[in-house]
């Protein structure tokens, strides 16, 4: 029998993994895998800003993270559309500048807001799954549910754009709007994982499940479901593994363990795919 805390954490990481796998599939298929990386870095100024404006609850801080994450994606799309700079330069530059802005704001908060018990940057960067409580879990499940509903509602245009953006455009679908919707979903998926998994490692949970699933299927619907399952499995596996390996003298952090589990899934899928010669 596992104890209730571990149960909460396992359920939470499973939900985070499932949602990340689900939404990440589209980022991978659209060849914009590193969007998740940019969003999670760009969330830092939002976290600091929310704190600076008096938000102390988890909800407010996550809202701040989502706002600057979205703003960063908007910045990228405005610059790419209006200059000859390529996507990778703009994404990298925006990521770094938002992160730098976040660092500056964080420094300001640390010095000027009295009683600022803002979690250390470490916690934000690497996440702390063990700190997850029941209300965190409820928030994750609620937001995850919303993401799934939105995906189902807009499945047709999303599927079309993922499959062939130019074709979708000729049929009269607005590729730009679908991309914006997908970016918003990605922001939501990153934000709910931020606390538990951390900035740097969230980008792996976005990319890896989809890449692993891609080795088994070419159908989009199957791919999405499989990626969600693999993401959830990685969440459960990583959490339990880090729990079993840890004892009183040694704590193995949960976030990195989850990432290594999901990376192992990718490695196994790749090797099997290569051997079967598909």
């Amino acid at each position: 029998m596992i104890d209730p805390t571990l149960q909460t954490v396992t359920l939470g990481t499973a939900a985070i993994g499932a949602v990340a796998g689900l939404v990440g599939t589209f980022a991978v298929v659209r060849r914009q895998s590193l969007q998740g990386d940019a969003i999670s870095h760009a969330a830092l100024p939002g976290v600091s800003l929310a704190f600076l404006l008096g938000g102390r609850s988890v909800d407010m801080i996550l809202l701040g993270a989502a706002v600057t994450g979205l703003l960063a994606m908007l910045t990228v799309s405005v610059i790419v559309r209006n200059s000859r700079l390529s996507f990778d330069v703009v994404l990298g530059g925006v990521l770094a500048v938002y992160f730098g802005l976040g660092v500056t704001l964080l420094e300001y908060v640390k010095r000027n807001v009295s009683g600022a018990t803002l979690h250390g940057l470490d916690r934000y960067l690497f996440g702390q799954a063990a700190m997850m409580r029941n209300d965190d879990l409820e928030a994750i499940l609620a937001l995850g549910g919303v993401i799934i509903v939105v995906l189902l509602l807009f499945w047709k245009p999303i599927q079309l754009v993922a499959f062939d953006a130019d074709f979708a455009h000729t049929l009269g679908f607005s590729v730009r709007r679908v991309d914006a919707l997908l970016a918003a979903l990605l922001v939501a998926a990153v934000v709910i994982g931020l606390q538990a998994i951390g900035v740097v490692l969230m980008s792996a949970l976005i990319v890896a499940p989809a890449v692993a699933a891609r080795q088994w299927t070419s159908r989009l619907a199957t791919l999405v479901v499989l990626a969600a399952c693999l993401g959830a499995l990685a969440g459960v596996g990583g959490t339990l593994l880090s729990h079993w390996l840890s004892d009183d003298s040694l704590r193995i952090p949960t976030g990195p363990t989850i990432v290594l589990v999901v990376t192992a899934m990718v490695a196994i899928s790749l090797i099997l795919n290569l051997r079967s010669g598909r």
Partner: protein
Amino acid sequence: MSRPELETIGVMAAMAAACSLPGVLLVLRRMVLVGDAISHVLLPGIVIAYFFVNDAASPFLLLGAALSGVVTVALVEVLQRSRLIKEDAAIGLVFPAMFSIGVILVSMNLRNVHLDVDRVLLGSAELACINPTEVFGWSLPRAMVVLLAITLINLVFLLLFLKELQLVIFDAALAASFGFMPFLLHYAMMTIVSLTTVAAFEAVGSVLVLAFFAVPVATARLLTHRLLPLFGLSAIVGIVTAIGGTMLAFQLDTTIAGTTTTLLGLVFCVVFCFAPDSGLVAQYLRRRQQVRSLHETMLLIHLLTHEKTPAEIDEASEGNLPRHLAWTATHVNALVSDAKSKGLIIVQNGICRLTDSGRRSAQQSIRTPGFVSITDRPGKSRDS
């Protein structure tokens, strides 16, 4: 300004100078996100090297970091070559995995060693000057000397391989067919990037190195099309911003790395809006100018079509033009007064009439092959 402050400014300027050359290569080869990955894997590189040398101050730690950068590039390349994974996904897989290994190794084995993760990620330009070293009798910050040496190495690399680099940048396939070994050059480039990242992260931290790789070059790219000016311009943007940002950080008494990066972002924004040729304002003005000149031509042709016909009084009357051409009255008034001042039309009793030069201009527009084919197109597409 005190000596430590001056030394810190020197360190930051040297960092910007060192980053400018690898930055241009990364941007033009569309590999900025590989640079991102390299900057993230410094941590595991340092940790693993620490296991071998057991000394937190050893230079081998930095060698380990540089090596892990090259290993990351190689891994991404292998995954990509398998054709099962696209490049962006490969990058997104490799660096978090390496980073996770680094974090787990730290938490398993280095509980007693103070390996400050904040410092790896955010750097500590503030502390860079407490480590002086003697060079030719001068006492300079160690970080500055290292960064200047890296700048020199980068410059030599550029001068030695300028022709090869140009070829690889503009046409990698052609370079390969000439036997220029893009593979070797690619890894030489990545080694340069990796070394520079390692040298620079002490000053600004691993994430913000990325800012100095990407943003100055992106800014310079908006100002020039040519390769050599791009190198110079991005170095200037980087160095000036680094100096300005550091001084600003001293004034505000806040983080140097954060302030400098934010300033870089602001500089880019200003250039993005106001660049003389490709800025937003220039684009807007050019588009407006194009619309104006097209509409002027349309107005002249409209007048020519109805010239000396019974409908002229209706079609060419200044008051009816907005209705016939489906433009707003303000737009028509602006166009008419513009054309009047250019001597293309005159207005008599509220009727617009072409002058000789206006008529010539309208006839010429109609005869221009491009123009005729545009007006023909709707008819053709209806037939097909």
